[in-house]
């Protein structure tokens, strides 16, 4: 049972033909090959709630192709399911780069998944646009990585800084921090703690809890004795829900004036609808809300198209949180390619480092690590929300932007008053 080298070559050839059939099919039309962008989307597993990102990509592709494509070539997406598992990611991105021969990459959703593809992207020298990944380039320092989300420079530390800035202007002296034991939340909590130390705000308690914890009353109770004036909470959707309910069930210490900050969950339509007026008064981060200060060209048209697609795909009907930034990730590439007239990775990356990009989420400038030069994570307060359902959130005034100051769209209402 020995295999000669020639047979082995044939065997390998056969396998690669079988597995790379689409790539070969497209190379037959050699002259007018589409430009390909590849990525994974978590269709299944713990992060499956983020699969509406695909609609963002697809709308970008469709609009671009309807307008004649890019450099006269069609744009094609190659998307695989990473099953929310970091272990799947290196193999899939190698398939994208080495077999499907994609021209550009989007990262998977989130930092843990992205961490396993960054070395590969760097090694293969492909421009990669980060999709809501926090601090993914801090270690690898890859010069062709660009972040679509508005974390700003020094994101790990600063992305939720708006909350602490508000705390400072409100004269808060004591703050409590609680975070789910997940990568994003822990990064945010640790960053928040450092910001507090710099600003001279005392961190009276610092709790890390497992994401499966069902009962948060103990955490809320423990806070009572500490009498914090603000609570910075970094949670995931199920625990965000439990915490928000805990506000009325257990109650907050009377001293608390600011609550929220880093909760993932109240950006999603299903939870906003479920929690309704329980959300009032909470100040939480968001990436886009329909306030008059955020009227970027194209965003409203995008959301209208998204709504239709989301209905068909049975995903989040509002789509404020992730999809616009996926569309913008596409725009980052298409604008750079148009400007340079090339898909050369270096040219595109150099252009992006040197020039601002107009996207549906605003004008973006990148620093040397590919982060936005300015932080634009919104701290918005839920105000005047009732239990009437989703439509209210499509109007301005329900999630009032308090920070950053440039986009401020209303005034902070004291927590107790906002809830009454």
């Amino acid at each position, binding site marked *: 049972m020995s295999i000669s080298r020639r047979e082995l070559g044939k065997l390998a050839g056969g396998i690669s033909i079988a597995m790379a059939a689409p790539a070969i099919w497209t190379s037959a039309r050699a002259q007018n090959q589409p430009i390909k962008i590849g990525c994974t989307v978590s269709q299944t597993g713990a992060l*499956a*709630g983020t699969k509406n990102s695909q609609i963002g990509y697809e709308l970008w592709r469709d609009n671009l192709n309807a307008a004649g494509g890019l450099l006269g070539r069609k744009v094609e997406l190659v998307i695989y399911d990473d099953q929310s598992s970091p272990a799947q990611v290196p193999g899939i991105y190698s398939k994208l780069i080495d077999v499907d021969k994609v021209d550009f990459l989007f990262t998977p959703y989130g930092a843990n998944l992205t961490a396993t593809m960054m070395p590969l992207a760097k090694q293969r020298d492909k421009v990669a646009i980060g999709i809501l990944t926090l601090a993914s380039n801090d270690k690898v320092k890859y010069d062709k990585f660009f972040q679509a989300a508005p974390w700003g420079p020094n994101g790990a530390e600063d992305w939720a800084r708006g909350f602490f800035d508000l705390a400072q202007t409100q004269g808060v002296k004591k703050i409590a921090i609680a975070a789910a034991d997940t990568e994003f939340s822990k990064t945010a909590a640790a960053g928040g703690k450092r910001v507090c130390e710099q600003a001279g705000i005392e961190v009276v308690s610092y709790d890390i*809890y497992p994401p499966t914890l069902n*009962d948060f009353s103990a955490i809320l109770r423990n806070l009572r004795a500490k009498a914090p004036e603000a609570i910075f909470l970094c949670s995931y959707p199920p625990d965000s829900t439990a915490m928000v309910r805990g506000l009325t069930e257990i109650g907050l210490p009377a001293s608390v004036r600011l609550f929220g900050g880093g909760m993932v969950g109240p950006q999603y339509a299903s939870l906003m609808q479920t929690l309704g007026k329980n959300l009032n008064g909470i100040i939480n981060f968001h990436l886009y809300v329909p306030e008059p200060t955020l009227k970027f060209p194209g965003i409203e048209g995008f959301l209208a198209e998204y709504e239709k697609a989301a209905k068909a795909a049975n995903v989040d009907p509002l789509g404020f949180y992730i999809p616009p930034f996926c569309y913008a990730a596409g725009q980052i590439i298409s604008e750079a390619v148009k400007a340079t007239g090339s898909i050369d990775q270096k040219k595109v990356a150099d252009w992006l480092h040197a020039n601002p990009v107009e996207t549906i989420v605003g004008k973006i400038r990148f620093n040397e690590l590919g982060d936005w030069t300015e932080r634009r994570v919104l701290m918005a307060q839920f105000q005047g929300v009732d239990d009437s359902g989703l439509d209210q959130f499509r109007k301005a005034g329900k999630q009032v932007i308090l920070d950053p100051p440039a986009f401020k769209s209303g005034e902070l209402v004291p927590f107790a008053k906002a809830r009454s």
Partner: protein
Amino acid sequence: MVFLDLALNALASGIALGCIYALVALGLAITFGLLHIPNVAHPALVIAGAYAVVLANMRGIDPILAALVLTLPFYAVGLAFYEFYARAFERRGRGNTLQSLTLFFGVSLIVEIALVVAFGTDLRSVSVPYVGRSFELGLIVLPYRFLVPALLAPAVILGLWLYMTRTHSGLAMRAVAHDERALSISGHDPVAIKRHAFGLATALAVLAGAALVIVGPVDPFAGRVHLGRVFAVVVLAGLGSIPGTLAAAIIIGVAEAFVTAFLSPSWAPGVAFAILLGTLALRPNGIFGTAR
């Protein structure tokens, strides 16, 4: 005073959590404890039950009421499911731990995907009037969304226990785990009894699903976090012991609540399983199990 406040509340919420764990584990206490079928798909079925309750709730029906009605179709699904299982192995006289585990793993994957396709991946929840309010007794404050499903557990367990001790088919169910031939000799069809038991276990999944979805929102993969814990409860209880299931679940719930309140929440999941490992090492028949 703070200590007393924390301790009392940890005890109360631990008991409530334990009751809810017991509900989730109850179906498994039957399929695994009595029939020796390691139904790892049970948590997935519980989530399927939760989604069925969500559907009914969208039409304005109270989740617990909906769950009670839905036990009937779920019972039927359980019968069909057992029939499939029995045809797959039992009558062929095969089917070891490995094969059953793999089969039910396959089933739970299919259930999860069916939920994804039917409902999408967003979190789903129910609306009940008592969400957001709490029951207060002295220092103890317990949210109704814990208390109500928690009260469901003792009621269901009492009902089940009466059924198991007072009725023919209940007695037969307790007998089937030990000796099928003994059942035949007593004039019972063991296959029918097992099918019935499996149906009952599946019907209990929908009650557990209602409890979970009242406590908090669910997504199609939400069953996975319960898998280890429910097996832990059933084993701690001693196979097949119905009151033991409640007691074991409460021990785990209270242990978790106390670790959360006094040590650190991040150690809570491990502590429960450490108890399980310790029990298995020292008392392999479970805390409430009799020697086999």
